[in-house]
């Protein structure tokens, strides 16, 4: 049985401009110990999906799904009280900006001990020892002193390590990392991602890594899921998707990544850019033209077609996520009328 099963999930916000569909037709599963990378531009529904799984959607959001289960528990009908037990204990989350995700009023130690004692019957002394062990596990030097520190006394990387320590304190089966490295220095980013990967292996927990950086996901997850305007446009095993993207949007994202510059140079998608940039030594990174569609006025048919260089009349029809039939790309799905690989 899969750890997390999501089937046809849609989230609609009731706003004063009318209903806005932030996420639609989202289907995926996550197994125990598996890691899933969710990639997409800001506003494409990544973070809202997390909140839906955590049951922390704002009041004006309406959640619909055919199935939303965690470990066999139906999250759609779960009572708030039981949800509170689930949060932190079985699913935990770390946030984009660790400095603001820690309560400024309490020392790091108090916050970790608090989180431990919310879920477990444990003496103060044991909780303290546990907090020390956790800080050790997330690689914080001089943990005894750090426990007494207040959040403003920590650097961003340290604060994110503390957040991770809090998140794993009850050994959750699923850790959702919502852009865990976006607010950090580039040098720290790699350390944090390595730490997450190590802890995931040690604790055998599943990891949902949400980011806008395909490079981050490429190195750190088994599966990948590319989202655009609230829909999954492509999903599959990471290596396969990154090396042979089927959806023009995935392709565009990869082409826009510095490490893919060489590979992208031969690509169809960048031909136009080559004309202008050929004389320069280092070419300008290609970007996808246009903007993310306004969710209040979605385009007809494929959401990406206004920005897509391959768009044709068949793209105006509604499209669902279809498996790729090519046998060398097993477990791949794409939402495109003219995918690359077929």
């Amino acid at each position, binding site marked *: 049985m899969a750890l997390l099963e999501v089937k046809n999930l849609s989230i609609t916000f009731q706003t004063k401009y009318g209903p806005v569909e932030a996420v639609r037709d989202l289907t995926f599963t996550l197994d125990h110990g598996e890691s899933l990378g969710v990639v997409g531009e800001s506003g494409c529904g990544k973070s809202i999906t997390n909140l839906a799984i955590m049951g922390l959607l704002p009041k004006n959001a309406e959640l619909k799904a055919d199935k939303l289960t965690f470990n066999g528990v139906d999250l759609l009908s779960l009572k708030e009280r039981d949800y509170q037990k689930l949060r932190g204990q079985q699913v935990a989350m770390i946030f984009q900006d660790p400095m603001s995700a820690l*309560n400024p009023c309490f020392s790091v130690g108090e916050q970790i001990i*608090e989180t431990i004692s919310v879920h477990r019957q444990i003496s103060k002394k044991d909780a303290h020892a546990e907090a020390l062990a956790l800080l050790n596990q997330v690689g914080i030097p001089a943990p005894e002193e750090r426990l007494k520190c207040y959040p403003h006394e920590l650097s961003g990387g340290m604060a994110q390590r503390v957040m991770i320590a809090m998140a794993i304190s009850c050994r959750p089966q699923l850790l959702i990392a919502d852009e865990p490295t976006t607010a950090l220095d580039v040098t720290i980013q790699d350390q944090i991602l390595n730490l997450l990967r190590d802890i995931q292996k040690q604790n055998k927990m599943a990891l949902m890594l949400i980011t806008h950086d395909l490079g981050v996901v490429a190195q750190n997850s088994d599966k990948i899921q590319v989202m655009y305007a609230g829909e999954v446009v492509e999903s599959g095993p990471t290596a396969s998707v990154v090396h042979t993207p089927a959806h023009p949007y995935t392709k565009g994202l990869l082409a826009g990544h510095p490490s893919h510059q060489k590979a992208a140079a031969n690509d169809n998608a960048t031909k136009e850019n080559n004309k202008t940039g050929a004389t320069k030594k280092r070419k300008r990174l290609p970007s996808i033209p246009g903007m993310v569609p306004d969710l209040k006025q979605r385009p007809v048919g494929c959401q990406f077609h206004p920005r897509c260089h391959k768009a044709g009349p068949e793209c105006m029809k509604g499209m669902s996520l279809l498996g790729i039939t090519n046998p060398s790309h097993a477990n791949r799905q794409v939402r495109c009328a003219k995918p690359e690989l077929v």
Partner: protein
Amino acid sequence: MSDSAGQNTQTIILSELKGETPWREFWHSFCQNKGALIGLVVMTLFVIVGIFAPLLSPHNPTELFAEALRLPPAFMEGGQWRYALGSDDVGRDILSRLIHGTSLSLGIGLMVVTVSLFSGTLLGLLAGYFEGFLDRSIMRLTDILMALPSTLLAIVVVSVLGPGLVNAVWAVSIVAIPNYVRLVRALVLTEKKRQYVMAARSFGSGHWRTMLIEILPNCLAPIIVQATLGLSEGILNAAALGFLGLGAQPPTPEWGTMLADARPFMESAPWMVTFPGLCILLVVLGLNLLGDGLRDALDPRLKR
């Protein structure tokens, strides 16, 4: 070996980091405000006098001395050191009455603040945290309370409950509630959008826990300031009710009541109104100075 060296540099860095604890930082910026220090000294004196009132007062505050009717203070002509600040129209020692009145007035202030702070903070927390219907009902109620002049409202409350010290405390407390509700609600509305609240929820914290343990401590500084200012307002309002004859009743040595008793003799025996009035003035001034100082020291936006 390299590990212990790393440990050492770590502790050095940490000790440098630890320079100013929040408490020391607060005390430092509080001391820079001379007015606040004066307020603190004045209030400390009043509190000491209030606590040790039975020991400090030379006479029983309700004892009548037939030989000393409307005696002027000792430093005026005809005064006696036995009645240092003079005596009133029935021969009670004013100094003793003032000393006993101190604990009474401060007690009233504290009770008013406790009642209004507790209920106002709770209502404000609920309104700000849950919003929606609950918020609207609470806020409309406070709007109604605020629409009426506070003294008038207190008079209405007292006339419903009947005059007396305890009823006056209730009246003044009810009048003070809206200040706290509005303040706390506004604070909670901004605080709850911060990410640590979402983080706490995601770690399994329930509504009450989030409200009281996560959000409330972050709102505390302005609440403390408001409570200090509310203390002076409570004392002033209780004295006003006493002056109108609706608060503490005559034999009680309450400052406002003393003023009311002394009013007919304002010209023949001015010391009878002067000293209770001065006490009220000093306490309220001291508390306001203290409150302003606390606000300056606790509000990060007002720091240099």
